[in-house]
């Protein structure tokens, strides 16, 4: 390591030698940086999982444009839209087809615990609006009270889910009706529910008796091949009589939902602050280590100043130390962070886990906050006055 750093910096790796001279302090410093990294990884992991969980239901459907109520910031939030807007939208020459989407949460008493399934009421005759993984089984929903069940939902064992087939369906009571799941699809627990369920619009309306087929939650539109989505969105805004409606491309709707969850919902803000606190903790730990180290070596630094070493040399030492702490603290932080996220993912079925982009961004952030701490710590170097040595 010493040789590598000597080659890297073109001089004796004084920072490395200083840090490793006091092994217990060095270990404590690395543990501190690793702790800050774990904190950031966990918060970032939860924030990312919130993003993945937010986008996941969008992946169940295939659409080009989504029409929602003015206050519908998220898929499961906001008021309803009138079905008549679907008919108006169909008047546009580029709109090939449309489907009303109903959304509600269905409770399921599982004995030990109740779970809540985010349930989509869809038209079973329109498989084109469903992702290929789901569309093939859509015909089953034409049977009254039939459902496609999320096999990754919290509270449903994997074995139990694996046994669900058309020949061996699973039935359960909810909202006074007996629902029968014939097949499963891959979803997973989210922040707003324990999993997902697909039913026909008719079954949905029998589950939610206060809901009406004339007021779905969203309207999905598919365009003719080659049609310009944004141009169609613009046309629909002038075509549909209600100017307050949110008419967006399906991709934009998903991104707006994501932004809303991350920046305006309390959970997103809390996890965002968690990341910030992790960065601050790391910043303080590295600063404390570096500034103590500078204070401990003021006489040596003053000697080097007397010998003719310039400011860049001293900055180099402090940045070398910051780099060593940042890089070496990151490795255990990555390992522990990955383990915690994996464990949390297994327990919660949230899409939690380490990603390459997360690891790279945290690594770069760690090096950056270490360098920033180093830059602050170098202010103490001014106290090294070589004239005091005599």
């Amino acid at each position: 390591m010493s040789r590598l750093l000597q080659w890297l910096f073109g001089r004796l790796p004084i920072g490395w030698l200083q840090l490793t001279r006091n092994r217990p302090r060095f270990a404590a410093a690395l543990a501190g940086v690793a702790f800050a990294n774990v904190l950031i990884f966990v918060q970032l992991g939860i924030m990312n999982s919130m993003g993945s969980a937010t986008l996941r239901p969008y992946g169940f459907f295939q659409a080009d444009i989504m029409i929602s109520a003015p206050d519908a910031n998220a898929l499961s939030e906001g008021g309803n839209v009138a079905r008549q807007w679907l008919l108006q939208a169909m008047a546009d020459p580029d709109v090939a087809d449309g489907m009303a989407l109903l959304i509600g949460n269905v409770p399921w008493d599982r004995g030990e615990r109740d779970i809540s399934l985010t349930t989509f009421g869809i038209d079973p005759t329109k498989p084109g609006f469903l992702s290929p993984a789901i569309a093939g089984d859509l015909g089953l929903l034409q049977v009254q009270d039939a459902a496609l069940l999320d096999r990754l939902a919290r509270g449903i064992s994997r074995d139990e889910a694996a046994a669900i087939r058309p020949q061996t369906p699973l039935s359960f009571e909810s909202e006074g009706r007996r629902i029968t799941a014939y097949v499963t699809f891959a979803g997973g627990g989210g922040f707003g529910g324990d999993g997902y369920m697909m039913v026909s619009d008719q079954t949905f309306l029998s589950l939610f008796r206060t809901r009406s087929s004339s007021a779905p939650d969203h309207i999905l539109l598919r365009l003719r091949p080659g049609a310009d989505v944004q141009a169609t969105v613009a046309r629909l805004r002038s075509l549909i009589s209600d100017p307050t409606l949110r008419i967006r491309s399906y991709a934009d709707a998903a991104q707006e939902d994501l932004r809303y969850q991350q920046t305006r919902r309390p959970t997103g803000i809390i996890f965002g602050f968690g990341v910030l606190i992790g960065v601050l903790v790391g910043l303080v730990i590295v600063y404390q280590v570096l500034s103590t180290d500078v204070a401990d070596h003021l006489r040596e630094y003053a000697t080097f100043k007397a010998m003719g070493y310039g400011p860049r040399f001293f900055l180099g030492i402090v940045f070398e130390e910051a780099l060593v702490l940042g890089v070496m603290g990151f490795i255990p932080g990555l390992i522990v962070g990955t383990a915690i996220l994996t464990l949390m993912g297994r327990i919660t079925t949230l899409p939690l886990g380490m990603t390459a982009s997360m690891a790279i961004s945290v690594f770069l952030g760690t090096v950056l906050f270490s360098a920033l701490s180093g830059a602050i710590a170098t202010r103490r170097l001014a106290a090294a006055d070589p004239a005091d040595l005599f």
Partner: protein
Amino acid sequence: MDREDIVSVQGLNHWFGTGEVRKQALYDVSLALKRGSLTVMMGPSGSGKTTVLTLIGCLRSVQEGSVRLLGQELMGATEAQLILLRRRLGFIFQAHNLHESLTAVQNVVMGVQVHPGIADDTAETAAAHALGLVGLSDRIGYLPANLSGGQKQRVAVARALVSTPALVLADEPTAALDKDSAAEVVDLLKRMGKTRGTTTLLVTHDNRILDRADRILSLEDGRIVKIEERA
């Protein structure tokens, strides 16, 4: 200034503090140091010896008077110029001031690496040679914590001399050394003066050194009160 003079000081005055607590430390000090000479500066505590050393060593700013070092006027010199000049000097402090995390040879290498462009192997060879000159060939890989006080001081001497400085400024360099080691160090300084033209200005109370000095300056209350030529 004589062409042979490495240092020329004229009418040097220096003060510490400001306002009512401002106190003059040097009064009209003038001196010159010839190339290769060994000059001893003596005087009681507070007489201004250290102030003279730090001013000539570019460690303080000249306030009034003139200090010419290696042909350059220090009055008004920039920090960058002072740094470059300091690289041509060798400092030996009363406390060894070795870096505790560096081995003996690494500490001495620091005296070489201050000059840019010197290869690592060359620096290490020069450092090992300098340690040999002070009798520490067998201690090059030792950390300061594992060296005696005298050995540490000899490493500091090797660090100061390794790049053959034009001027060595030393403050009680033999205080921690036994009689033989002290004589070896002073002889080494004298030898470098003769063979390489290294000039030495040292502050000491050690009578063993006085016999080897070319000149002895006596300071009292910030003034040079006596100059004794020995050679």
